[in-house]
């Protein structure tokens, strides 16, 4: 639990707002089935209270912003439209995002993994970048390859798409377009703690990184070096999008940890995890830092 009195005060005032939001969520659930994010306001409140890694520094924790965001969320009562509800919800998450305590480790290389649907979306961002650079025919070709890969069963095969992106005549165009590696301002990464980890298969990655839904397609790996002054933070429940299965690292741990699924035998060891500000594609040293991890 963060010890800052300021933070505790903020939690106390958030309690009322969250209780109101909880009631809102229950009403919405009664009408529309499961809560869109599959969790209730009460659970979020418990997770806030259990969160130990939120920074106690006022400049980072910013309880005023937290309160404002959650007040806005609580004030969004039925029959608010799903869009309004979603907007308030995301605003609240955004206020907490990247507020975890700094991690005191300095890994040399960071790894980000995208499952099939996320990879498809990310690669479409690259196509959009090609359009923005005035290369419409290139963009259409990339879109075609993405569509072809997405329809392959049993395993999406991104090799052909990646080969196109790596083309020495395509890659420099993309680097000139500031393509972010994630849609938000913060993103999860993993890294090697002591010895290099072999992240050889999508099934292993899915289990080791404790990704939510089981997906049997391949993953897209983005690998890039850390830079001087790169601030890695402990992931908090807000970084995880208030995902109820997320558990923050207790104080005293060197970094965040995944809780691997036991879907493969032997179950993988837990993996280090952190969040940091979203970089753009040019953080990759070379196009070879983009690769498909096969099933």
């Amino acid at each position: 639990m963060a010890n800052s009195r300021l933070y505790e005060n903020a939690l106390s005032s958030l309690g009322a707002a969250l209780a109101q939001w909880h009631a809102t969520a229950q009403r919405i659930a009664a009408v529309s089935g499961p809560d869109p994010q599959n969790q209730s306001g009460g659970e979020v409140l418990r997770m806030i209270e259990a969160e130990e890694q939120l920074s106690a520094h006022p400049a980072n924790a910013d309880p005023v912003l937290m309160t404002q965001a959650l007040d806005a969320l609580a004030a969004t009562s039925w029959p608010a439209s799903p869009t309004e509800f979603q907007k308030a919800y995301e605003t609240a998450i955004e206020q907490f995002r990247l507020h975890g305590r700094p991690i005191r480790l300095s890994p040399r290389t960071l790894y980000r993994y995208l499952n099939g649907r996320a990879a498809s979306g990310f690669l479409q961002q690259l196509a959009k970048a090609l359009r923005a650079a005035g290369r419409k025919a290139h963009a259409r070709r990339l879109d075609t390859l993405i569509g072809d890969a997405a329809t392959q069963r049993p395993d999406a095969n991104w090799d052909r798409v990646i080969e196109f992106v790596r083309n020495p005549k395509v890659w420099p165009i993309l680097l000139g377009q500031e393509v972010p590696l994630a849609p938000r301002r913060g993103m999860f990464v993993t890294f090697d703690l002591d010895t290099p980890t072999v992240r050889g298969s999508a099934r292993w990655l899915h289990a080791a990184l404790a990704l939510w839904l089981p997906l049997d397609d391949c993953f897209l790996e983005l690998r890039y070096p850390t830079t001087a002054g790169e601030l890695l933070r402990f992931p908090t429940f807000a970084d995880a999008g208030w995902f109820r299965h997320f558990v923050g690292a207790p104080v005293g741990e060197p970094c965040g940890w995944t809780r691997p699924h036991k879907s493969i035998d032997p179950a993988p060891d837990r993996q280090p995890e952190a969040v940091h500000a979203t970089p753009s594609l040019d953080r990759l040293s070379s196009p070879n830092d983009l690769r498909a991890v096969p099933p």
Partner: protein
Amino acid sequence: MALALTNDGRIDVAALDKWSVAELRDWLADRLKGQDRLWPIDAENFETPESLFIWLWRDANPQSAFVATLGRACGELLPEAWGKPPEPWLRPLLRLVATIRPEACQAFLNRVVIHRNFSPEMREEDMDEAWLDTLAAYDRQSPDLVKVWRQLLHDARFADIAYRALSHDLIQAVWSLPEYYQALTPDERSVLLPEAMRDMLRWHTSTVFATLVRYGGKLSETPGLCGAIDAALKEMDYPPVLARASAPKAPVPPAQESNTTHGDGASVLRDIARERPLAKVA
């Protein structure tokens, strides 16, 4: 309707067989508009609105009621999308249709492409290209459309789309290469011609090479094309095919219906049965 889930938390695709066209259309429309309350879009991960339906379609039995219903739902949304100024949900809908290519949408798309009655607003936002590109994804193109695509090959704005539509048929793919090549900028040629050759090699290699040789006369009329084709093949470790070609000008292929029988090239093989296949360089 509520979504049925499997024990491991996925959407139960088989249960979607029970959904009506209207129910599926409403869900699809909500999702494309970013308002899906049944299965929220994963905004943390660049998930696009249409990708869930692509994945469900991929996981479903091709003969299932769900696949047919999804096609009809798309077919109902397309005319609705056409009648209005371009809306943000139209692009994801067209991407979905271009990917899963439902039969129920093809007649409408044919009409759009044959008449090309695009509003200035649609042209301004490049939606005319998006509509054409959607139909170009279909493997089967009617003879009327083949004629339209051949005309569009001469329009720099649509040439690559037209070539994509024609390239579902090997003979059309080879025959249209000169117009396609001329329509591309030098920068586009260096990227897209090797891509075209790579696509062509979905057919049997010897069939492709024999077809290139057969139409070598026409190909050689476009300066630089034969060299570019050979260079693209060399990058894939194949020997030059056209450097030694001096075939007479081949007859114009009919605007026959394209088909999807990639890999057999039966009619071409009959024509070139006596030709010796070229070996891949070791």
